């Protein structure tokens, strides 16, 4: 049940009305949301809901155990239990084949072991496992760090883990942000619900009208056969890829935040116009914010952060970005991608960083070329990512090198890009770079519309999008 499906719209409407109908009874509303979340998750693969229960039960009881004891060794033991349990599940379902294949390749390169090709195990990746594992981990880690009190009811904790708007592809919600909301009385806020509906509409437009169109008409043809296209077309497709990833994922986050708002919950924003970033550190403060802040708080800072020797800071960045790469997928191309995006961050350690005054005093040209550099750097990196995830044939790093070679090939290209993909890319750029105030104006105008006007806009948007959808494309981040 993807957000961009009619089934989800019907499901959400039913949950919305049912939730507010029973909202006065605390346990009933939590139970209803939890059951709805399980139904939502089981629509992909019912049996994997068991993993969700295991992860939930493990961290609920481990969290309580950590809180109960003051003995440091015991606290560490319970934390290790939680980390091992969660990461073992994640490791088996997501990384087992990768590690086995790498081990197999290593043995072969050393002249040991079998010479025949590696046959992967038939392991299906449960949807959203990377996201909910991080959420449950954040709970035990925060209790261990004494930043959070354990929750008093397993139902509340289960709802925090399984809350359907963010269950499958984020944003990764911290327990400290979400659990206190469960203690608040349920009070319907029509303004928040109106803004939520607007976000859902905006997310659907981003996903169906822009991301899928760019993917289908601009990115896919070029990545399928880069040799048939000229350098400019390849550059457009690579830019398109970065925009497609941004639009696809931020659309999911928008719909998640909007759906949660309609139910009276606040989820953190996940994207803040990342292509306006003037340096790479700023980019990571604007792109997939919930994930980067998780890695910052629980990995980078745990390793020592920036309050240590330079060599150690570089090591901390390296480890963090390799893990960021691996979190996205089990493959060497993700590791390479992680290292590649980490290198500039490591280099920054040796450079003096501009002060806020210096940043503010930058000329227009200075700002533009810095943004262009950040954008193009990530566009280059995304080629590795794209070739390893959704491109036909999963050609990974080799595919990226072939594309880079095609950039220098200026002769005899006959294939042409579909103008629709280019138009969608241009529109996406306009929407991204438009002032935030414009979005707020549009949102306020929508919420101020009369009832029938709002309903009309909703019918128009969902109707047009359903007519446009060539096929229901899944969200890219589902596979992470």
């Amino acid at each position, binding site marked *: 049940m993807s957000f961009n499906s009619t089934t989800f719209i019907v499901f959400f409407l039913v949950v919305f009305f049912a939730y507010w109908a029973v909202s006065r009874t605390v346990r009933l509303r939590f139970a209803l949301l939890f059951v709805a979340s399980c139904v939502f998750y089981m629509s992909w693969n019912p049996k994997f809901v068991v993993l969700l229960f295991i992860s939930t039960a493990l961290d609920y009881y481990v969290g309580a155990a950590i809180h109960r004891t003051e003995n440091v060794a015991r606290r560490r033991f319970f934390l290790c239990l939680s980390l091992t349990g969660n990461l073992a599940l994640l490791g088996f379902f997501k990384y087992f084949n990768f590690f086995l294949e790498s081990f197999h390749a290593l043995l072969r390169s050393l002249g040991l072991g079998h010479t025949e090709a590696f046959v992967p195990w038939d392991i299906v990746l449960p949807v959203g496992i990377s996201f909910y594992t991080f959420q449950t981990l954040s709970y035990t880690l925060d209790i261990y760090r004494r930043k959070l009190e354990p929750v008093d009811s397993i139902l509340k904790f289960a709802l925090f883990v399984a809350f359907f708007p963010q269950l499958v592809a984020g944003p990764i919600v911290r327990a400290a942000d979400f659990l206190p909301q469960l203690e608040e009385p349920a009070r319907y806020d*029509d303004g928040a619900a109106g803004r939520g*509906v607007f976000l859902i509409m905006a997310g659907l437009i981003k996903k169906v009208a822009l991301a899928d169109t760019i993917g289908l008409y601009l990115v896919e043809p070029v990545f399928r056969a880069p040799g048939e296209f000229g350098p400019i077309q390849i550059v457009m497709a690579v830019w398109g890829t970065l925009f497609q990833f941004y639009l696809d994922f931020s659309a999911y986050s928008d719909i998640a935040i909007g759906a949660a708002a309609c139910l009276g919950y606040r989820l953190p924003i996940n994207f803040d116009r990342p292509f306006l970033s003037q340096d790479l550190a700023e980019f990571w403060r604007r792109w997939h914010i919930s994930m980067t802040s998780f890695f910052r708080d629980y990995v980078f800072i745990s390793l020592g952060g920036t309050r240590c020797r330079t060599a150690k800071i570089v090591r901390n960045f390296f480890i963090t970005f390799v893990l960021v790469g691996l979190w996205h997928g089990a493959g060497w191309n993700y590791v390479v991608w992680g290292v590649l995006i980490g290198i500039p961050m490591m280099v920054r350690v040796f450079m003096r960083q501009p002060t806020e005054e210096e940043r503010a005093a930058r000329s227009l040209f200075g700002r533009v070329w810095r943004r262009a550099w950040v954008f193009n750097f990530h566009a280059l990196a995304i080629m590795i990512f794209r070739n390893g995830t959704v491109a036909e044939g999963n050609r990974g790093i080799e595919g990226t090198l072939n594309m880079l070679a095609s950039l220098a090939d200026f002769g005899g290209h006959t294939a042409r890009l579909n103008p629709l993909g280019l138009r969608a890319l241009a529109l996406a750029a306009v929407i991204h770079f438009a002032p935030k105030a414009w979005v707020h104006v549009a949102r306020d105008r929508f919420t101020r519309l009369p*009832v029938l006007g*709002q309903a009309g806009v909703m019918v128009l948007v969902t109707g047009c999008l359903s007519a446009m959808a060539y096929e229901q494309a899944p969200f890219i981040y589902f596979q992470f």
Partner: protein
Amino acid sequence: MSDTRPKPFLLQKTVLAGLCYVALCLGLLAHSRHERLSLVQPTRSALVREMLCPEQPPADVLFLGSSRTARGAIPEVFEQRYEELTGERVRALNLATLGRSKHINYLTLVEYLSAFPPPKAVFLEVGQLDRTEHAHDLTARFMSPADVLRVLWRAPYRARTRERSQELTANPPGNAFDSFFLYLERCFANVDLAMEGLGRGPEDEAFALYCRARNAWAGLLGGAGAGRSRFEAAFEGLQSPYASEVIESSDADLSQQIRDRGWYQVKTTGNYYQKGKAHLDEWDRTLNGDSAFRRTKMPVDYTLPGRYLATILYTKAFVDLCQRHGIRLIQVEIPGFLDDAMSNSQIAYYRRKGELYQPPDRVVLAKENFADVNHLDEEGAKKFTRALAQLLAKPPRR
């Protein structure tokens, strides 16, 4: 003092908007179903169903396609020529009818196979029929907002009544023969939509119910006369699950032709035929082979994603179905007069999928063999059908 009590949940603005949204969606859904149903052309479907009824003997050769095939392949001529060539008697059945897309032809073959043993061969029309922009292809492609507007504005919601259809037939949009065809094709694309939207099973029942109600209403309003009361006319209408044809006034005649012999030709005295011939003369005066080829060769590329989705899917489905049942599938380009040359990409595509027959120039080309630029006349159909029999008499090339 102002009242600070919150409004009840169901009276909140966004909640009301949500409820209105649900109501509007349901209303639009019902309306679109109604529109689709009223546009399905049932008589032809009904006739095909009658031709497929199990009391009929099974056929050895089937013709499937649009009006080009319906008017261009004559079963008796085929049977006779095939017997001359091989000494073997076969039964041929022309299941093609006007405005049929590949989807419907596929469903027809599925229906046929559910009632009869597999035929020896199926002649399937390709070319112009596959280039028709079906409504859902158009909307799915969404090449520009103008495309969507065009679909909404021009077709298929234009002729909802028999009277309006007749008016349009008599006065085609812009008085252009081609635009009339374009209009017609898009209208028939709704058959596909109806099939897709409703599914094969309920479509028949729902449509039959709709038609019965509509016929009864028409009888009640104006069916009195010839010794019967309005109520008798309404009752008569209620018994008929079929709506009436929209093409020209000779629809009854066409239906009778299909019923009697399995193929049809329009009356040579009719307005439709005269217009077709006039158009043919004009093309003959103004175009030669080369200029016509340049003008009508369309840049069709089946490899473009999102375009011609239906053609690609149903061509594959046809090939698979025929392979499963051991049927020889022959894809046939039905001749047009200086019109609709297939592109190299199309030809290559069909050849990859199986056997493709393109009639050589010597089979049919003269203006005299055509009723209009798209359809053969009876003489042309005889010539062409003989060529098809000859093709089947030869063993397939490996």
